[in-house]
């Protein structure tokens, strides 16, 4: 999948998502130019000083040394600025990607693999940042810096430039000759290095199962032996994979040696100055540094590229809706025409189509055996899922043509099993909005719920009883400024007295209300949802 993206293709995709990445690229180029110029400057000045000393031990080198120190200072300044600058430029990209991830998470119908979204929003975004902050600059430098340094060499000493250019040109051929097999294995080598880690993870995660079967001690004791076996096979792969690094190293060090030999012979012949020779010698290894760094970072970025590809896949698929009608401001009339929902694991044709007309402000019940699709129908009405068949009209307007954000603001939906995120009772009730403590207390009192607003709750409001949790969730839903209430089992876990209180509070809201329920409640009409085969029995 995304792993097949080449790093350059990834950059193009990223560019399409956000042109902000051009800032990172520009900075990478500017910093690269600064570094190349400073490298050449340092080499020239140092060579000049050493050349003067060679000619005359007492040569006045004080001013040149000062220049050298100033160059070092400038280099330090560039280095001081580069990290914060790269990080600052990655900031808007990071921010945008996180917001887009959240957008994608909150998209209806995207709740199938929620964990992967969290991964994408954390590790995936980190990966893109690493990619932009380290890999892209390295990529730019690996092309630009050797070319710039070679150009300078060509101008200063064409012979050495030729040697270096030849080895750089040889590099791909060398890599191909050595690496045809290696490349194939290289792709596996990172996975290979993970084999041991995965085996360990498997054993540790399954330790309880192993122990129940009295196998944990044996497996733990043989973990070392298995490790040895896996290490041998991993090393076999790595020995081949490392060959490409070896070829790069061999070419760069042979080129340095060859340049030094040729320079030496020409110095003996007297057709070259020592200063030039030293400057060339100092610059030669620098040509290979960016290449080596890019290849090292390429390995480090394999994961980053994969993760970055995944996040872009996700953002590419974010659906767009053109529904734009506003939701009605007053409690609307709802009409269900020949409606069928798809219930997981069942053919929707097995469910009977539902027709219903719900007048503004009416409280109606939705009844039927479990698994028949009551919850799904409520999710459809809440704008979280699509219908399998039929249509829903809101004051005569099809639900599908109402702008989702507007509809969601007009709805309040109580899930069958809400998680109640928030650190305190106040957090849970307000859902990020500022209602004022008085209204919150009133909402609790309506349901006879005696809880301190500052009471801190654990994850999923652990510590409250099931009935308290239920009423807290109902209170939260009723607080929403909604004209349509969609309540999934609001009276579950409640006794008759509390159930009646809940229904009274619901009625007081005056909204058009649909309640999915198993019990007899005080409602205006009850609709029956059922499967035909059960009907016949």
């Amino acid at each position, binding site marked *: 999948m995304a792993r097949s993206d080449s790093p350059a293709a990834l950059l193009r995709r990223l560019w399409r998502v956000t042109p902000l990445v051009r800032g990172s690229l520009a900075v990478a180029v500017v910093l690269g130019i600064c570094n190349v110029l400073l490298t050449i400057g340092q080499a020239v000045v140092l060579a000049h000083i050493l050349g003067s000393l060679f000619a005359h031990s007492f040569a006045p080198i004080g001013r040149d040394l000062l220049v050298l120190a100033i160059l070092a200072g400038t*280099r330090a300044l560039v280095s*001081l600025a580069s990290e914060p600058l790269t990080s600052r430029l990655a900031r808007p990209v990071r921010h945008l990607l996180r917001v887009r991830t959240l957008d994608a998470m909150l998209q209806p119908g995207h709740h199938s693999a929620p964990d992967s979204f969290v991964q994408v929003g954390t590790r995936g975004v980190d990966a893109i940042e690493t990619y932009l902050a380290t890999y892209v600059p390295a990529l730019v430098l690996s092309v630009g810096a050797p070319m710039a340094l070679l150009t300078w060499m060509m101008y200063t000493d064409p012979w050495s430039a030729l040697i270096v250019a030849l080895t750089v040109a040889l590099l791909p051929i060398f890599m191909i000759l050595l690496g045809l097999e290696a490349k194939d294995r290289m792709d596996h080598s990172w996975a290979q290095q993970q084999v041991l880690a995965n085996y360990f993870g498997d054993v*540790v995660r399954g*330790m309880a199962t192993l122990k129940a079967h009295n196998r944990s001690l044996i497996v733990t004791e043989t973990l070392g032996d298995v490790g040895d076996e896996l290490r041998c096979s991993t090393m076999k792969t790595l020995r081949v994979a490392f060959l490409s690094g070896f070829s790069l190293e061999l070419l760069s060090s042979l080129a*340095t040696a060859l340049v030094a030999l040729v320079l030496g*012979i020409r110095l003996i012949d007297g057709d070259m100055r020592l200063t030039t020779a030293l400057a060339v010698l100092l610059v030669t290894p620098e040509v290979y540094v960016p290449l080596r760094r890019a290849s090292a970072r390429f390995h480090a970025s394999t994961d980053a590229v994969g993760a970055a590809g995944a996040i872009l896949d996700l953002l590419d698929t974010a659906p767009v809706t053109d529904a734009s009608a506003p939701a009605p401001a007053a409690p609307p009339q709802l009409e269900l025409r020949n409606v069928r929902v798809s219930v997981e694991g069942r053919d929707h044709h097995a469910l009977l189509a539902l027709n219903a007309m719900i007048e503004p402000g009416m409280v109606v019940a939705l009844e039927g055996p479990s698994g028949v699709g009551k919850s799904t129908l409520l999710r459809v009405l809440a704008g*979280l899922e699509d219908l399998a068949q039929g249509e829903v009209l809101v004051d005569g307007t099809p639900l599908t043509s109402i702008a989702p954000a507007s509809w969601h603001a007009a709805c309040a939906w109580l899930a069958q099993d809400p998680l109640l995120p928030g650190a305190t009772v106040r957090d849970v009730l307000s859902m990020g909005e500022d209602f004022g403590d008085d209204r919150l207390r009133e909402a609790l009192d309506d349901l006879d719920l005696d809880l301190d607003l500052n009471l801190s709750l654990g994850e999923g409001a652990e510590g409250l009883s099931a009935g308290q949790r239920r009423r807290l969730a109902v209170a939260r839903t009723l607080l929403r400024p909604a004209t349509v209430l969609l309540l999934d089992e609001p009276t579950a876990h409640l006794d008759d007295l509390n159930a009646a209180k809940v229904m009274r509070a619901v009625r007081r809201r005056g909204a058009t209300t649909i309640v999915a329920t198993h019990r007899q409640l005080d409602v205006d009409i009850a609709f029956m949802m059922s499967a035909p085969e059960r009907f016949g029995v």
Partner: protein
Amino acid sequence: MSEVRQRSVLRESLVLERRSVVIALFASAAVSIMTVALAGSAAWLIVRSAQRPALLSLTFLMGLVQLLALGKAAGRYGERVSTHQAALRIMARVRAMTASRLEPLVPAGLGARSADVVETVIGDVDKVQELLVSVAGPVSANLIAGFSAVAVALFVAPATALVFALGTVLVGIVIPLAAARAGTRPEMELSDARARLRHVLDDASRSGDEYVANGASIALYRRLENAEVAYDRAARQVAHRAGLFGALNVLTIGLTIVAIVASTQGALENHRIAVSLLAVPALLALSSLELVSASSASLLSIQSGRGALSRLNALVARPWPMRDPANPDVLGSSSDVTLSDVSVWRNDQPVLTKVDATWNAGAVVAISGPSGSGKTTLAHLVARFIEPHGGAATLGGIDLQRLDGAQARTRVGYVDDDPHVFATTLAANMRLACPAATDDEILQALLAVGLGPLLSTLPHALDTQLGGAVTGLSGGERRRLGVARALLAKRPVLVLDEPTEGLDESEARLLLSEVRRHQSDGIVVVISHQEQDHLGATTHHFVNGGRALTLG
């Protein structure tokens, strides 16, 4: 737990694998030394040539340069192979040691969130590997190379060696240590901010539709924004520190070179250095200090590795939930279970109190009750994963505390509510319950738990690789597999924790009746909050708040 000596898993592994550590360090140092020596001898060659001697007199020097070039490339290859070899060896030790420290704690000694603890351990081991491969290894190798270069300078031009040594100490030791120190707080703030971001996204992933359908998504965006601001602040600090120490390195290297050149001139004036060697100290230092300065970048991230290591080491300090007796009794033929007035404590809190039960061969036992009431603790007690703290619990007429865990579990089979499926073949997953089982017996067990339909969809039947995304099993299938394994193991007492979660009514009924049929001579204990799973039970315990009520 003061008497427990906290031994470092990493230190012990390093000692055990010292041979490969020494080889790896030697190889890394050798390649670094050759890199530095290549720069130095090339400088020597050039300056010597400029004196225009006879070409023949340079043969040695030219040969040396070529030899070092070849040696450096070969050395780099050797270094990479040997360092990976060493790292893999050490990590195999660390993993084996960690697993054996974890083994006695599982499943009851890791607290309520044991799955989280296990995931943290796995993540920590990876971090220790990172610490080893990208921090400890390169830093020590570069330091060896740095000081070897200083030694060469001492030999070639003693006058320059003092400045060179000073520069090496600054770049190789002082600046990296300062960087590691200064990096601690921002790194911690960054990981806090990352946790906040994660929390927002977790909420969005689990309760996203509640926020959306109530028109409250804006709250999530606001929280994301706030977390992002905190993250930016921390990231900015981290970047500023990285920039600062990078700049300090560059400046120190530059000034050291200036000082070396100046002292070279002094040495030349006093004829304490041969003219042909005048470029050697500067070029040697330039290439050596650049290598050494790589240390501070890697030390910036040492903190997370250290935290991971100390968490792993602290595993030893956790109290064991159960200890085998020194001279265990031996079980007879009976496997009946009796509990009288049994209580179990955890963290000074009673988890089970005054539990009475008698289960004889042929019993079908039902355990129900709200979540967190102590049902699983009761199962752990019978499977000998924890000690009873009061009263008497016996298996086959022998006090459980007089039995070692493995012996008790040859009689008691336990399937937890989330049985693990190992990343191996289906057959191997089954055989861990009974290594001698034939394919036929395995098939029988799988068919009994209703995995027949699954089996027919697997590409290589019993030899299909399980685990991972490709052939992932659903929650219900995992639980069925767990039950099948337990049937294959043929234990007289079989305890199933929530075996029917994720199955519908008729599937659950079928599964449990098959289990009862297979286990008709023994004891079946089913923990479930589904009333219908308990139809036909001979004994029914209702557990609530640590008290078990026997209903008949």
